[in-house]
């Protein structure tokens, strides 16, 4: 989605009305799928002391069934609008290849309303989990939109007062390269590490959440500030409520547009795009030649933006929890990494901890 936004930016195209709404709906589906996967199947086992969700299913089958049904409705939105769940094929520069009739979307409504209730239940359940004391002094970075909880567009803002247009991103952020890793790590110039994702969106956009999402958060004991990264599991639940609520509204208000895409004439230009992927801001920049062929591309995914912060969290967490037994400390350090729902290839359940106590 960031890529088509960047291309449209380069070509001076605006996509609005039902086409914009469909893109927002597609992203809601992605958030629901991704958050349900992470909350229940990847993050919850840590809190409950299970090694994976299959083990949870043996003792609490209803919880895992709820997770799978939530995840499934998210995936169904993505598959209906995108053609398939992973690497959807239907989005194009200017709009879509094919837009659905309203009658293709309304069958999703009943289960989305169930999903909204199940998400409220998710928030309530997540709030009962045990949370370690840990509140680093983060700089949060997220998009901010005049009216909406940010998904597809907005200005890039931070908790230290940054407020810039997307095309100014690279004037303020750069990537460094550490010898110990292939992964690039983003740095906010003159500030250092920063935190993107649900916690950042929540802290910078609480006032943009829908009433039902706000009250789910309050009922769970959250205020409009949450700095404990372990509690991101509750905030993901709040965003599940938000995404289900928005998806219901978008489908109810949808009318099928007359054309699937606005006309596109390739020409030279540079374009910038930034969207809120489930795990944080995703920045794209492209340079196109006169035929529209990409001659230069830069992509900064959210996990690379969180990378430096994750390492900083690990250092702080180990220092303040060094008295834990090795096995417990290793597991909690894995959990520190998983708090960020890192891009799934980095989310693997594997950590070698060499402890040298003095």
């Amino acid at each position, binding site marked *: 989605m960031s890529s088509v936004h960047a291309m449209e930016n380069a070509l001076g195209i605006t996509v609005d009305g039902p086409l914009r709404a469909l893109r927002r709906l597609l992203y809601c589906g992605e958030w629901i799928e991704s958050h349900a*996967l992470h909350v229940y*199947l*990847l993050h919850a*086992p840590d809190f409950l002391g299970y*090694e*994976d*969700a*299959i*083990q949870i*299913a043996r003792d609490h089958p209803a919880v*895992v069934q709820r997770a*799978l*049904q939530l*995840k*499934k409705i998210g*995936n169904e939105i993505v598959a209906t609008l995108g*053609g*398939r*769940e*992973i*690497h959807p*094929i*239907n989005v*194009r520069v200017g709009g*879509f*290849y*094919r837009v659905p009739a309203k009658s293709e979307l309304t069958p999703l409504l009943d289960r989305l309303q169930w999903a909204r209730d199940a998400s409220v239940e998710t928030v309530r359940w997540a709030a009962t989990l045990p949370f370690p004391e840990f509140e680093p002094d983060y700089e949060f970075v997220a998009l901010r939109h005049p009216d909406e909880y940010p998904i597809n567009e907005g200005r890039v803002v931070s908790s230290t007062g940054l407020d810039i247009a997307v095309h100014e991103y690279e004037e303020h952020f750069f*990537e*460094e*390269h*550490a*010898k110990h890793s*292939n992964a*690039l790590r983003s740095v906010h110039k003159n500030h250092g590490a920063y935190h993107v994702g649900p916690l950042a969106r929540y802290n910078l956009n609480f006032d943009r959440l829908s009433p039902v999402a706000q009250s789910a958060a309050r009922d769970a004991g959250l205020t409009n500030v949450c700095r404990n990264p372990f509690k991101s599991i509750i905030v993901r639940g709040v965003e599940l409520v938000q995404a289900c609520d928005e998806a219901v509204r978008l489908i109810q208000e949808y009318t099928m547009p007359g054309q*699937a895409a606005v006309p596109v004439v390739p020409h030279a230009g540079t374009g910038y795009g930034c969207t809120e992927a489930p795990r944080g801001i995703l920045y794209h920049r492209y340079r196109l030649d006169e035929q529209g062929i990409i001659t230069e591309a830069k992509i900064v995914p959210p996990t690379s933006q969180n990378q430096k912060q994750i390492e900083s969290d690990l250092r702080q967490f180990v220092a303040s929890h060094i008295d834990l037994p090795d096995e417990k400390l290793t*597991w909690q350090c*894995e959990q520190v990494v998983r708090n960020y729902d890192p*891009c*799934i*290839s980095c*989310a*693997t*359940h*594997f950590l070698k901890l060499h402890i040298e106590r003095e």
Partner: protein
Amino acid sequence: MARHAKPRLAVWKFSSCDGCQLSLLDCEDELLAVAGAVEIANFPEASRAIGKGPYDLSLVEGSITTPHDAERIHRVRRLSKFLITIGACATAGGIQALRNFHDVRSYISAVYPSPEFIETLSKSTPISDHVKVDMELRGCPINKYQLVEILSAILNKRKPGISSHSVCIECKRRGTVCLMVAQGIPCLGPVTHAGCGAICPSYNRGCYGCFGPKETPNTESLAAQLTVLGVSDPDIVRARGRAPHPDQGA
């Protein structure tokens, strides 16, 4: 003994985006049934529990791009009775095989601020270039129903129903009117391996070949037809390079 009576499944990752192994977690209706039929002994994307080998069945995702991975795949093979590669990276080298047609060093210095930290091979190669592969599933990503089918077939000791014809047949089965014939939209369906269910044409988009070439693809004939439709030569060259064949640039 009873604990080990179920076949032991392992999932391995090499250079890839994880989309193919995510397909297993996307089987919302089948996941618990699969977990009941096999012992998921090694699946680090989903579980902390890592059981030691050997494994009855290994799913391997990703291509070989580093010296470390070129060694690791031999260990995976030794531990696995039956080895299936899943997805375009593992079966053909994936999008990272774009490097096979260029000097990888120019790519590294374009991407990394400190190229000297990067240890990589000059080519991205499929798993079958390194070890014996018992079966492969195509696609970027794989079709999750094909994954369930292949698991079910192996568990029940039968031949999996995985077709090797072109995407064209899948359009006919689905009842999609041919985009090339009816609308003049360029489509790689005639030379592309089936398996996706012909999704793109049903969304009014020509196939872009993400399942890779079918056996004996007639690319000359397709290129001639694309020229008739007004596709430029450079675009045809790009379309052919999109799903690199294992033999190309080897």
